[in-house]
Structure formats: C-alpha cells, structure tokens
C-alpha cells in the first residue's frame, strides 16, 4: 500500500517541476533561439549547438568534427588570431567547447551584461572562420597529443574505444569522437573547409541562452548578428547496422593493476519507449550501492572493486548499454562476467520489485531537479532534447518514465540483453 501512495505523490509532483520560463524563436534563416530565464545566479550561459558530430563524418576522416572544433578557436574574419578565449576571459568569462558523437557545442559562462561579446564572437565564427594553414598543422599536433593523453596512455578509455569499435560493424558510432591517429593525420585543410560549409550554418544549429536575461532585448541583439548568415541543408546519411549473429569479444593487455570487464548491449534511443524502460533497468542493475550488481559483486562476493551501468537514451540513434566492472584480480574476470549474466537472466525471469521501480523514478526526479542547480547544466539538459527534434520532448520523457512498469523492464531485458546484441571487452594487466 505504501508504494501506491508514493506513486500518487510522484505523479502529482512532477508536473509542478516545470522550467522557470523557456521561450523559443526561429529566425528567418532557420536558426532557432531558446531562452531560459533563470535568475538563480549571477552567471549566464551562451551556447551554440551544431547538429553535427562523429556520426556524420565521412569514411577515413574520423575526428574531423573534433578537429574543426579546435580550429574554431583559431580566429575568424573580424577576430583574427587565437583571441577568442582571451576576449572572453578579459570579460571575466570562461569559454570552451566539446564534441560528441551527435553534436558539437560551443559555450561561454559570463555575466548577463556581457552577452553581446558572445553574440559578436559566435556569429563571426559561424559565418567567417579563417582557415590559417599553420594553425591547422599546429592543431593537428595538439589533437594527436590529446589522443595520446586520453586514449593511448589510458587503458580504461582504450578498452571502451575498442568495445564500441567492435559492437558496430557499419554504423558510424563505431568511430571514436577524437578520431583514429591515421585519420587525423590524413585530414586536409580543404576537408575541414568543406565540412564547415556543409554543417556549420544557422539551419543546422540552435542557440540557447540561460540566465537572468531579457528575452526581447536579447532576441534583437542576436537577430542583428545572426540573421544575415546564409543557411545550408546538410546531407544526412541513413544509418544502419547489419545483423549480429553472436557475442563478440576483444581482449586488451596493458599496464594496469585492476582488470576491467566492459559489456555492451546494443539498445534503442529515445523517443523509442524501450529506451526509457532501459533507463529504469539501468538503475536497478548498476546505479548506486543498493543496485543488484553492486550488491552481488562488490558487497557480497567481493569479486569486484566497483561496478556500474550506463545508458545514453538521448542519442540520435540507438547506442550501447554499458556494464563496467573493475575486477579484484585477473583470475576473477570470468566469475564476474558469469555473475553479471546471471543477474541479467534473473531479471528476464522474475519481475523486479515495485520498490526498485519506485527508486528509479525517485532518482530520475532528483537528477531532473539537480540538473537545474546550474544555469549551464540546465541549458545542456534542454539542448540534448533539442538535438532530437525539440526540447519539448522533455514532457514526453517525463511522462514515459512515470509509466514504466516492472513488466516493461522485464520485457526490455528479454528483447535486448542477448548474445546477438552483446560485445565484451576485457582489459588485463600485461
């Protein structure tokens, strides 16, 4: 009975957790503006999102999205040289960017009174990026150093890169975002220019501004700088992945103290309803110390030092559900894998407890609320939905989560957690 009461409270509570105030506006050239009025801090964020990431890259040019991101800091027509960060910092702001498999985001965090600086700089580099060839060669070297630092010399990242590459045979998600070294080396300045002209334009971008802001005033300022930039219609490939016939496996031997087991199941993405049930499954299996895998592997049997699960439902296409375990010693690797598989089989046969479903919903509610603690995080949260079509999908996401039942969780376990969807990576000490 208690569980039922909690559910009712929950349904009542979620609707009032609406956003402070969100408005959108589309300029004539197709550029969408999303404004979030959030007066909780003295800092605003300006974010330009381009709907292009490693999923869009041509064959043999992996890493081109990320390399272009680096070049965006090397000057534009009205701001030549690498002055971008210098200008922002001299205004007391910070700026950066990041590339994902699905999109690329450029952002600043600064006082709301300084937003004009972001508008001037971002509009100039959307329209008029300079492609200085010396800078280009330097950025290639920097990216190769970045790759060495983050992958070559980091076995845990490397095994995950290997598993992703193994899981997908044809789908572009198999490529690492940073790119393979040989691909990075082979990218030319012309490649980069073509890529920029194909994907960096108002119709393939949107802007989010969050903070203590005045909508109409800001809209005019953005319109003045951005509306004259001509638009484009980027080509979109259709993605597919051929059928998988059985479990795949990669073993990597590198210098490490703790072996790592990485299991990855191919799963669908939101708005497919299954992706939401898989989110709930993720909490039950591997999020937190009360999760089933943690209890069994770390607390009770003491075979692993840590275990966790990760799902990314807000992808442009279906990606992977990861189960990652740090194993106590190499001779325990097989036991750990076996127990993980047993736990998955158990979910397939026995319905999860209502309390576990309730816990998952409490956690979704909390992460939704805590994501709004930072103006920046709040904007990111909204942007991820906008990449899928519209930020208004958040409502659907919340509704779907509330509807997930124990039976749904069991169904998705049966549908996706099978050998024909599984790739396993094992990192062992050399």
């Amino acid at each position: 009975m208690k569980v039922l009461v909690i559910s009712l409270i929950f349904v009542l509570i979620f609707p009032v957790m609406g956003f402070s105030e969100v408005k959108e506006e589309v300029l004539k050239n197709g550029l969408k503006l999303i404004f979030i009025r959030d007066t909780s801090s003295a800092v605003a964020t300006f974010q330009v999102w381009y709907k292009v990431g490693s999923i869009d890259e041509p064959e043999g040019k992996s890493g081109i999205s990320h390399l272009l991101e680096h070049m965006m800091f090397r000057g534009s027509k009205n701001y030549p040289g690498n002055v971008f960060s210098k200008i922002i910092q001299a205004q007391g702001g910070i700026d950066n960017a990041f590339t994902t498999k699905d999109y690329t985001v450029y952002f600043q965090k600064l006082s709301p009174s300084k937003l004009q600086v972001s508008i001037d700089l971002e509009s100039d580099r959307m329209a008029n990026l300079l492609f200085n060839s010396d800078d280009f060669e330097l950025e290639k070297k920097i990216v190769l150093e970045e790759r060495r630092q983050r992958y070559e010399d980091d076995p845990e990242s490397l095994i995950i890169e290997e598993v992703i590459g193994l899981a997908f045979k044809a789908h572009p998600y198999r490529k690492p975002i940073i790119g393979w070294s040989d691909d990075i080396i082979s990218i030319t300045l012309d490649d980069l220019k073509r890529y920029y002209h194909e994907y960096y334009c108002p119709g393939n971008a949107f802007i989010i501004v969050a903070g203590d802001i005045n909508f109409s005033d800001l809209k005019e300022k953005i319109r003045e700088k951005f509306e004259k930039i001509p638009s484009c219609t980027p080509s979109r490939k259709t993605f597919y992945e051929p059928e998988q016939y059985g479990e795949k496996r990669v073993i990597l031997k590198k210098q490490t103290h703790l072996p790592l087991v990485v299991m990855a199941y191919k799963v669908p993405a939101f708005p497919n309803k299954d992706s939401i049930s898989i989110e709930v499954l993720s909490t039950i299996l591997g999020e937190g110390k009360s999760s089933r895998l943690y209890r069994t592997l770390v607390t009770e049997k003491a075979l692993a030092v840590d275990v966790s699960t990760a799902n990314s439902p807000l992808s442009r296409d279906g990606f992977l559900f990861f189960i990652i375990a740090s194993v106590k010693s190499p001779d325990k690797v097989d036991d750990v894998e076996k127990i993980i598989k047993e736990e998955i089989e158990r979910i397939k046969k026995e319905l999860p407890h209502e309390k576990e479903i309730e816990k998952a919903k409490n956690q979704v509610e909390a992460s939704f609320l805590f994501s709004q603690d930072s103006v920046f995080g709040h904007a990111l949260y909204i942007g991820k939905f906008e990449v899928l079509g519209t930020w208004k999908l958040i409502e659907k996401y919340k509704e779907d989560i509330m509807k997930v039942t124990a039976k749904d969780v069991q169904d998705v376990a049966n549908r996706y957690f099978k050998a024909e969807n599984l790739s396993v990576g094992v990192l062992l000490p050399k």
Partner: protein
Amino acid sequence: MDFKTFTLKNGAKIKYLYRDSIPIVYLSVLIPASPLDEIKPSVAYLTAHLLTHGTKTRTVTEIEDEIDFFAISIDKKITHDYTMLTLATTKRHLKEALNLFFDILLNPTFPEEELKKELIRVEKSLRQMEEDPSYIAYKNFIKQLFDKHPYGRAVEGEPEELKNITRQDIVDFYKKFYNPQRMIFSVVGSLEEKELKELIENPIEQWQAVQYSRNLNPPLFKKRQQPLKIFIKREDLTQSTIILGFEGISRQDPDFYAVSVMNYILGGGGLTSRLARQVREERGLAYSIYSTFLPYLMPGAFYVEVKTKNENTQYVINLIIEEIKKMKNSEVSDEELKDAKAFLVGSFPLRIDTMKKISEFLPVMDFYGLGDDYIAKYPEYIEKVTKQDIKRVAQRILNTDGYIVVVVGKDL
C-alpha cells in the same frame, strides 16, 4: 550574498542561505580533521568513508538502501586541511535525508568487518591510482617537497601502511575530531528559517562538545642549491608526464592575491596563459599545460604540469624554465595585468554559481578566516595588486635554482 551565520551553544556554526528556485536542499559540514591530525596515514580518510557503513540503528545495507531509494547523495571530501560532507536532497525527501545524515554523523559504529572491506578497497584503488602517470609524478613531487609532513602524501594514504590500521585508530580519531565545537555547517536551498531551527539546529545543538585543539606543525622545506631531477621509467607510455615545482604559500599569506594574479598570467589562465601560448598554441607540443598552487593552512606547493610526446621532454622543460625566469626578471605588461584582474574579478561569481558550490564555499571561507564580507571584498583585494607586486612575488616564490622536476615516461 545575503547569507546568515548562527553560532550554536556547543560552538558549531551554521551558514544559511534561502533559495527557492528549485525544490532541493544542500547541507554541508566542514570538520577540521585531516591528515594533519593523523597518527597513521589514511585514518582521516577512512573515518569519513566509514561513517556510512553502520550506525547504532542502521546497518550498512540499510544506509545504502535509503540513500538510493530517496535519491539522496552524501559526498565526502577529505583535503589536507579538513573533511567535508555534503548532503543533497530533494525537498520532498528532506526529512528522511536529514534523519539519515545526522545518524551517520552522530552515531557511527565503525564495524570491524566494514573496516576490513574498506581497507581492501582503498588498497586496490591506491594500487590502481599508482598506474596513472599524473598520480605517480605528483606523488613523487610532493614526497620530495614535504618529506615526512602529512602534506607530502595523498589523503588516501599509502598502500603499504594500511595493514597497521585498527578499528581503535578510527574510533579515537572520530571521538577527538568529530566534535561540534569547531564544525562549520551550511544550509542552502528551499528551507525556511523556522524549519532550519527545527530540523537542523536542534540535532546539532544536542551534540555535546569536548574541548580540543589541533596540534599543527608546519612543513620544513629543504634549501636546494640545484634542481632535483627524478625520472620514473614507464616503457608503456607514449607521452612523458612532467611536474616541475617548488614551495608555495599558505592561504593566510599576505601575498596570496599577488600570487593569484601572477599564476594566472604564467600558467593558470587556460589557453591564454604564457605557458599555454609557448608550449601549446605556438608549438603544438602539448594538449594541456598549467601551473597551480595549493594554499593550505600552512605553505603548500606551486607547480607546473604538462604531458608531451617523449622526444619533446627536455625541450618542454626548458621552455617552462625560460617562462619562469621571464616572470622573475621583467614586469608583466599592462595588458596582461588588466586582463588577469578582469578575469579573476569577473569570474568570481562562477565559483559560486550553483547552490552546491555555495554550500561548500561558505564553510571553507569561514575555516580559512576570510571573513563574511569576503565575496564583496575580493575585487578590492585583486585590484590592489601592482606589476611590482607580481615581480616581487615571482622572485620570492619561483625557484629557478632549487626546483624539483619529476618525469614519468619512456626515457628522458
């Protein structure tokens, strides 16, 4: 920032800020207990971590169940100077969260079994950290700089010494240092002052304080006439990790603000710093390079860290030394000074732009005695710094004769 400070009868303080934009609440507590107070390494760390492993009325399993079910988080941070716990909860589960939080803080039982498990976990995790080139370089650097002083080791301790720790060590540490007399709490979020008194002040005030003081010894730094070079061979690495540094300053040092500006210009300012310009932007030798300093209660370290392709190791070290010398030998430009000040002053709000950051910042501000008007005064402290100050502190701190340089990589 419009926060209030209350001092309770037992000596504990509460910093309180009401915010109702989201129905969530943060509660932090700073406990003046750290490796500085340890008889055996790792005891401060283990004490904090074992709080959630059993109380008089809850088993470890029950605690973990409650944390996850109510979607509460309890972060534990152990620095070289203090321990801090931060509770985050939705307003909807506030009562359950506070109930649990005060139980773990006031009634921990430190079960023997749990200590054993935790020792194994810490040992494994330290061994794994010791595979990370940045950790290896840093560990060796601080060991040389601080010698046997607690600042010279990781707060987690050393894997070899864990076996000597007993349950009694933890119990004794808790009894002496987890004491409301000097604790600083902060509460930020959707909680009225009336509720603060009922739900938070009462449980803290019922806690009996015991008189105690910390017995703190400053580190003794060796005077070096020439650089100390340490090379740690790792055949498997494609990059060398370099840490180059020396003695820095304490948080109370009057030169703190001048050092902040100097460090920003040298290597603290991201892509725009002198070091980043020389090593990354103009030569493409590294993805990241930065300088930083650790202003503890007593003097900490000042160092530069960079990773570069093996064959560039010596070249990058030379570039770092060159930049450090330049900082000592000539004044910074007007533009550099202006930009650095504008950044440090202008970006200050970024350090407290979430409720979580505010909740953790307020007790720290009090702990280091910066004053309740610190946030308002900070711009003034920075604006006062002159070019001459920067050159003076550069000459005082940047040690081009007796620095320590650690390289982890394939070869030198």
